[in-house]
């Protein structure tokens, strides 16, 4: 295919994406078969769900196939949509109009630090500078009624949708150093030159797979509820089964896609399994507080962006910092 020069993408990443595409084809065929077998049942939701998955995987695949910048732009756009969705959900004040504008400017800047590989700025820009700047701007405007709620919700939203998710993009800039605590085991020559896509694909695959695994195990084994007041669908069986599945999958896929050995991959799987659950229920708690069922409507068949990236808001920073600790 002369349109894309895929030589920058390691073969193991290309094969994994192909595998994902095949899984989607199977999902599409399954829907079609179900529709034919049971024409009286309504499979519209399933159809929309699978179709949206095609769009998401397609765009993501396109971004990583093109180049690093395309991937950063894609992920920055996801952060933008997530932050916008969050602000549209929560109560906001008219007085904070210009403060919110400033907050949005943090998005291109945060991803600029990623693009430049400026780790020091990437890690403090939102937790320190935006954290200090936004309340100061609010104080200058002077509307004190609702000040605490405004600063609290704004910072939490920025941290969750921008700071957390940007860790996924920063994976592209990870390069094992001499101070590495463990020996990197390169999956391929291209993987050694460009390890980022492999790490990102592993993160996304394990995170989404963890969601699915917890759901399936929950339906099969689950009885005792873990967080009944927040998410009545989550059971202990689902959680443990899902974490186990994710840990094992990570053990198998990790060394294949990334420079991690099987032990580190196993740990990463455990982290993603638990973190994914925590992220999922944290957004569920938010939705319950606000009295909404879906965070938005932008993804047909799924709901909103936050519904889709909730697990990622926890797994991205946890996975990044684990890899960073072990190898940098």
């Amino acid at each position, binding site marked *: 295919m002369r349109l894309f020069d895929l030589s920058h993408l390691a073969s193991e990443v290309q094969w994994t994406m192909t595998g994902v595409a095949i899984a989607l084809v199977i999902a599409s065929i399954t829907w079609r078969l179900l529709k034919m077998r049971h024409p009286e049942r309504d499979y519209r939701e399933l159809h929309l769900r699978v179709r949206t998955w095609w769009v998401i995987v397609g765009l993501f695949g396109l971004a990583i196939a093109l180049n690093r910048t395309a991937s950063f732009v894609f992920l920055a756009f996801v952060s*933008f*949509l997530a932050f*916008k*969705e969050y*602000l*549209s*959900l*929560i*109560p*906001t*004040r*008219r*007085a904070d*109009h*210009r403060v*919110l*504008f400033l907050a*949005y400017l943090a998005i291109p800047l945060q991803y600029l630090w990623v693009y430049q590989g400026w780790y020091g700025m990437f890690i403090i820009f939102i937790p320190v500078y935006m954290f200090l700047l936004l309340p100061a701007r609010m104080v200058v405007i002077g*509307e004190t*009624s*609702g000040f605490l709620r405004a600063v609290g919700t704004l910072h939490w939203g920025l941290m969750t949708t921008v700071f957390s998710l940007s860790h996924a993009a920063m994976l592209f800039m990870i390069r094992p150093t001499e101070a590495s605590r463990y020996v990197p085991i390169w999956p391929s020559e291209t993987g050694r030159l460009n390890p980022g896509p492999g790490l990102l694909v592993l993160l996304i695959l394990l995170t989404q797979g963890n969601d699915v695994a917890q759901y399936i195990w929950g339906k099969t084994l689950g009885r005792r509820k873990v967080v009944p007041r927040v998410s009545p669908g989550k059971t202990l069986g689902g959680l443990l089964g899902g974490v186990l599945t994710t840990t094992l999958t990570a053990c198998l896929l990790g060394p294949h896609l990334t420079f991690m050995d099987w032990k580190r991959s196993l740990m990463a799987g455990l982290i993603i399994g638990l973190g994914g659950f925590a992220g999922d229920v944290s957004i569920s708690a938010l939705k319950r507080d*606000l009295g*909404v069922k879906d965070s*938005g*409507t*932008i993804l047909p068949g799924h709901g909103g962006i936050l519904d889709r990236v909730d697990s990622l808001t926890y797994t991205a920073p946890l996975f990044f910092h684990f890899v960073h600790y072990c190898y940098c």
Partner: protein
Amino acid sequence: MSRALRFAFFLLVVRPVILIILGLNVRRRHLLPQNGPAIIAANHNSHLDAITLMTLFGMSQLHQVSPVAAVDYFHRNRLMKWFSNEIIGIIPLNRRIGTQRDDPLEPVSKALAAGKILILFPEGTRGEPEELQEFRTGIAHLAKRHPDVPIIPVFMYGLGKSLPRGEGILVPFFCDVFIGQDFRWNGSREAFMQILSSRMSSLADECRKPDWETEDSSA
């Protein structure tokens, strides 16, 4: 020339801003009229309202849809006048009564006779962001003159948060659009305004509105 400019403006500026930077969540899009003459009656909170409604119709219907706009505001200087007429394509409405002998609704009637889809804001002006004001009765006079023209009520929420009156910078928010069933002149001005009011209220009730505190409201 200006038709090409208008096309380019809507395709390259308005649509990306309204659909990507802001983002619309539209309910019952199928209730929008395919052809004119028709009147869209919507609530008014922002300068973004008219162009958002025009975006709902798509590029192929762009030449058919026109907002009715007050000349005392939109013709207040030469640049605004050129922009409103040539790029947006407004139907001018002269709100100043008494000083002129002509019928202020004449350009509007002419546009309806020509089969256009008109956008009207019965509140008359942008109020406090996301608050519904009392409706002016001009729309009733118009409906009486054109009893066969359907009136489609539309309620929008979110644009008043993105670009409220008095602010110059745009803050991205998702915008909800609720389109209602059309109705026509029913013989009485009071009954007509009653129906318009109740339709808008029920559309507004469908909308989830997170607290939007303005300076006047208490904590």
